[in-house]
């Protein structure tokens, strides 16, 4: 998916008054931007590289992130919308994505896969799959609730936090989803018996 290229600077800057001069090419604003957010990017990159045993690559990946941000006249940064997300959240997602790409590139380059730590290979499962849920049976949110509770072993409180809803709503959704699934599979069983 591509990022919007032309945006109003105010949409990009949001609460960060430095982003407008930065996009206009002000070197001092760039320096401040780097000083302010390098820690956010570094932390996100490092967290992703540590399990793969590639923490030594963190500095290079952080540099890649800043290169991506400023190349093509800040094309990536111009796609940021302060009304949609906080700059720290957006930078964390961008940095995480750069670290994952880095690990994928490493994996492709590696001739002897057996010599790599298992965790590197685990970054991107070889076979990615999706769950086939009968269309219209569960709402996306109900399915996500069940996935978080039963596959991710979360409490209603934890699941609620991930989705950004009330724990009581999680309980209610869980109940309604089970009613639907029960009815669906019972009907399926009856059809098989007939």
């Amino acid at each position: 998916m591509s990022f919007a290229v032309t945006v109003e600077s105010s949409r990009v800057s949001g609460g960060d008054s430095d982003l407008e001069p930065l996009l206009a090419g002000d070197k001092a604003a760039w320096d401040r931007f780097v000083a302010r957010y390098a820690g956010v990017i570094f932390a996100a990159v490092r967290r992703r590289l540590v399990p793969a045993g590639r923490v030594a690559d963190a500095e290079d990946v952080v540099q890649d992130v800043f290169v991506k941000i400023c190349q093509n006249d800040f094309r990536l940064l111009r796609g940021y919308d302060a009304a949609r997300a906080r700059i720290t959240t957006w930078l964390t997602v961008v940095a995480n994505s750069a670290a994952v790409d880095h690990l994928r590139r490493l994996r492709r380059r590696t001739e002897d896969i057996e010599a790599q730590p298992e965790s590197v290979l685990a970054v991107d499962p070889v076979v990615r799959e999706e769950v086939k849920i009968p269309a219209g049976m569960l709402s996306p949110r109900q399915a996500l609730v069940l996935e978080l509770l039963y596959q991710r072993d979360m409490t209603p409180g934890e699941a609620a936090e991930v989705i950004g809803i009330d724990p009581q709503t999680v309980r209610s959704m869980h109940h309604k989803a089970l009613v639907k699934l029960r009815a669906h599979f019972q009907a399926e069983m009856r059809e098989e018996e007939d």
Partner: protein
Amino acid sequence: MREDDIRTKEGAALWRQTRQGWSPLRDDEAPEALLLAAYLDGRLAEDEAARLEARLAGEPALLEELLALRESLAAGAEAPPAAVVTRAQGLRRRTPALRAFGADGPSWRERLFGFSLRPAVSALAGLALLVACAGAFELGRYQAGQLDTTQTVEAGDSDVPVDLLMSGLL
């Protein structure tokens, strides 16, 4: 069993049964960074959130990604090595300070001596250099003429030494 656990054996079995229908992932592109960030910040519109949640429920790898991002955000920033900051700051070269014009833009003086004449400055400098070179060349030629040591002398009778004339008579 943990406190506040609402899971049941039946629920686990039903969800397991639902998840049994695995199929290869469609060739969907990863959600863009801003969409994930907006979801993490709880700022997605209802329909956008529903679309993303449908993907999260059906794509374990994408859900894994989202949970990792949540952990990363909760952990917060870390102090980066100074070299990281210096290197990144060096990506942008220092440019001449931007002039802050008023809301109406540059004044007529600024337009005349600033913007309008700015391209002419380099042309004038080049012309001045050309004139200076030409002047230097001409000056050199003039001075060379002044220092010329070859002189032509027309010899007349008056210039012949007397003793030489006398020797012809003798």
